[in-house]
């Protein structure tokens, strides 16, 4: 029985079927390369649609490879049902035993393609890593951090972890700028100056609201904790905007004679 199945299996592979299989795989690869090139070219002409265009490729890749494999099995090899069941059974067992994690990541990748929690171009926080999603493969997700590091996270892990998505498919995202300021500054003037200074930054996306909150805090001395929230024009400019806004607020306060001694920190908010 086993010999018969094996013989039937071997008989499926002739020179012509092998050639057809290799051709199908090659055509799929070329098609995907062309699609990727076309999308990258489109992005270079229309950067404002970067995120929308970037999310097309991961889905197309899954679909095209699935279609190619389906075509090879059903259209080229055309195995009898007994072979299909036997192959699936043994392949499943072998793969399941040998590569549990890889299969887990692959399944997670397919689940993420079907129901995405983030897209290529989004700024996400996974564990201790915060950065822009630069690629979404079937088994891994790659992030580029502001320190210019590339972080690869297995998709299986991503499904288990809470994800904080800062822009959810949009180019702009909210950024928080936090400053610790002396309580000698009149609150109303501080708030007005902070809002006006944030509006002056060319990185700020003026179409969305800018807010400023001030709370008194105590840590050895009383101080004001100023939080200015504004949207950055492009997620990639998040740090530049945070720095620019903080500097502009400090300059404005200095110009008005309010600032003598300031300790400040700015921290981008991971939540949109």
């Amino acid at each position, binding site marked *: 029985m086993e010999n018969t199945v094996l013989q039937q299996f071997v008989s499926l592979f002739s020179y012509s079927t092998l050639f057809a299989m290799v051709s199908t795989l090659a055509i799929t690869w070329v098609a995907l390369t062309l699609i990727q090139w076309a999308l990258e070219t489109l992005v270079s002409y229309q*950067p*404002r649609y970067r995120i929308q265009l970037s999310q097309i490729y991961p889905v197309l890749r899954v679909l095209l490879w699935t279609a190619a494999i389906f075509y090879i099995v059903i259209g080229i090899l055309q195995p009898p049902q007994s072979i299909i069941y036997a192959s699936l059974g043994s392949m499943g067992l072998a793969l399941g035993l040998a590569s549990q994690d890889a299969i887990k990541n692959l399944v997670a990748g397919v689940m993420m393609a079907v129901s995405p929690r983030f897209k290529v171009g989004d700024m996400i926080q996974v564990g201790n890593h915060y950065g822009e999603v630069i690629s979404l493969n079937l088994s891994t997700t790659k992030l580029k951090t502001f320190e210019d590091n590339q972080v690869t996270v297995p998709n299986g892990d991503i499904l288990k972890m809470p994800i904080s998505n800062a822009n959810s498919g949009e180019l702009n995202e909210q950024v928080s700028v936090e400053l610790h300021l002396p309580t000698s500054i009149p609150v109303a003037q501080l708030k007005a100056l902070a809002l006006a200074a944030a*509006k002056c930054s060319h990185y700020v996306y003026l179409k969305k609201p800018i807010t400023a909150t001030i709370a008194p805090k105590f840590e050895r001395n009383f101080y004001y904790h100023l939080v200015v929230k504004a949207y950055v024009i492009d997620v990639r400019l998040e740090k530049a905007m945070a720095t620019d806004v903080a500097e502009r607020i400090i300059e404005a306060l200095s110009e008005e004679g309010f600032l003598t001694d300031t300790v400040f920190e700015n921290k981008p908010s991971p939540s949109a």
Partner: protein
Amino acid sequence: MSALWKKDEANLIPLDQVSRFYQSDQYQSLDAEVKSAFFDGPLEGLDQRTIDRKDLQFMQDTLNSWQQGRSISCAMSGEKGTGLSTLFNQFGAKLKHQQVKHKVVRINKRLSSESDVIFAFGNTLNVLDMATELDKFIEQLLSMPPTVIMVDNTHFMVQRTLHAHEVIDALTAMILGTRGHHLWIVGCEEQAWRRLSYSYQFENLFSHVHTVANFTEAEIKSLLAARFAYCGAKTVNGVSLEQLAKDKSPLSSIVKKSKGCVELALFYCLNQLTHGLEPHSFQVNNPQDIELGAFKKLTQHELFTLAELAAHGQLSIKEHQKIFRTTASQSKRLLEHLRVIGLLDKTDDLHQQDAYVLKLIISAVVVRYLISMNYLY
């Protein structure tokens, strides 16, 4: 692979050559009538070089409503070069004919404080013993007979500086305080209008907001026919002027290439214009595209500069310095670089020494590019 559909560079007009065209021998050799016919600045109301546009009807409807006692104010925005100033002049001529009292406040320098606003408006509206306080100035405006006040070049009110809101607050107070008594029609370049609306909710101030669209192909054909008629042409490429404005016009390729931008159409015409063999006849060749490869080499800082220039209308070195927190020499170097590659012009305005503006001919192209690159929104 991209080279496959790259246009033949030999057939493109280099960007810097566009700037030099008006100093070139080719342009200088043209007759004064031709130069005057294809003038690309604002024109007076009854000028033969203008055409009637549907936006004039909107202005007339607004006037009628105001005359019927409705308390309204209106804003008109349009891309740079859509002819807002010419529209105001045309409407002014109509008002004169209808004997309606009107004034055009043409702002010609950046207003940076409340007193600047009072002075600019008080001067044009001939307010006697002009008050220095806004409330009193508004009372003075109310004591004037009802007037149609058209405000042109509102882009001079845009500024990305700390106390910029003072200027907008002053204009807002003036419009709100006198609305109904006077009819305010405020004209603003599209990008400046968006900036004012996003930053100060400026659009909420107006009961009517109207966007002046780019010229349609038919309008550009009519306009070019009017310009040829102005310089005494009888035929263009052997076709009569009546036929020029029709579908199968020899100017079709110019109209298509200019994409609704009048300055570009006028430039293409002049650049390809030669006298025909017959008297009063002209020959216009197919236009060459402008080479815009320079955009791709621009840095992020330069693109941000172009975006702010589009929103502000024009920028002096000092203003650029304030917006981008750079030194005077850094700002000058950057603006001069953009001017040398042909994207900017330097204004010879007495009030704004060393002020830079987007080159009018290509400003629509630059703005569209900046929008696609997400520097403008």
